[in-house]
């Protein structure tokens, strides 16, 4: 079974530039999550999708971050404009309500450095 795919793995941009991350979850997983993990900290949930609907985006800085999950499969996370404090690893995860419910499968992450 293929895992969660993310790209790009690494991205370096200057502040005020924009960036987009892409995630392809495990086939059949209805729930998709974007987490932000700052170095030395635990993952922080930015947004949770159930199919293509948003379940929770209470911690998403909506003035600069946006995310969408078209057709309930792939998802993109965009940051515009980026700030220095956005430097982090952006982890995408997916889960199923049927097979191994509650278990999150994480991708390898996209490491963002904002200069």
């Amino acid at each position: 079974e293929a895992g969660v795919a993310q790209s790009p793995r690494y991205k370096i941009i200057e502040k005020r530039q924009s960036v987009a991350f892409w995630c392809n979850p495990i086939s059949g997983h209805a729930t998709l999550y974007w987490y932000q993990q700052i170095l030395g900290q635990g993952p922080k949930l930015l947004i949770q999708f159930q199919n293509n609907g948003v379940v929770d985006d209470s911690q998403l800085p909506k003035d600069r971050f946006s995310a969408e999950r078209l057709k309930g499969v792939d998802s993109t996370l965009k940051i515009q404009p980026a700030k220095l404090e956005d430097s982090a690893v952006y982890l995408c995860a997916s889960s199923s309500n049927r097979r191994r419910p509650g278990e999150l499968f994480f991708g390898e992450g996209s490491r963002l450095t904002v200069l």
Partner: protein
Amino acid sequence: QQPVQSPQAVILREGEDAVINCSSSKALYSVHWYRQKHGEAPVFLMILLKGGEQKGHDKISASFNEKKQQSSLYLTASQLSYSGTYFCGTRKAAGNKLTFGGGTRVLVKP
């Protein structure tokens, strides 16, 4: 609200035991444990649902005290492969968001 983990870090010799604690100020539906090795994605270890059950994964087990909103992860006869950062995640209800603690760094030395 983020669960609180303790200790922040622990160093063990191979074969020694350790306990990692996770506590919340809110009533919990479930507690989840993940391990993350340096530069890698977090990997699922186990889920504990309210009811005080205890689970195991190899020689790693965990308990959940629903009344105290606390969970403990037990590393027994630790192996070098147990090194990494352990995160607990908590949910207040089924399908609710999973909130992670700050992590506990574990280093197992030969």
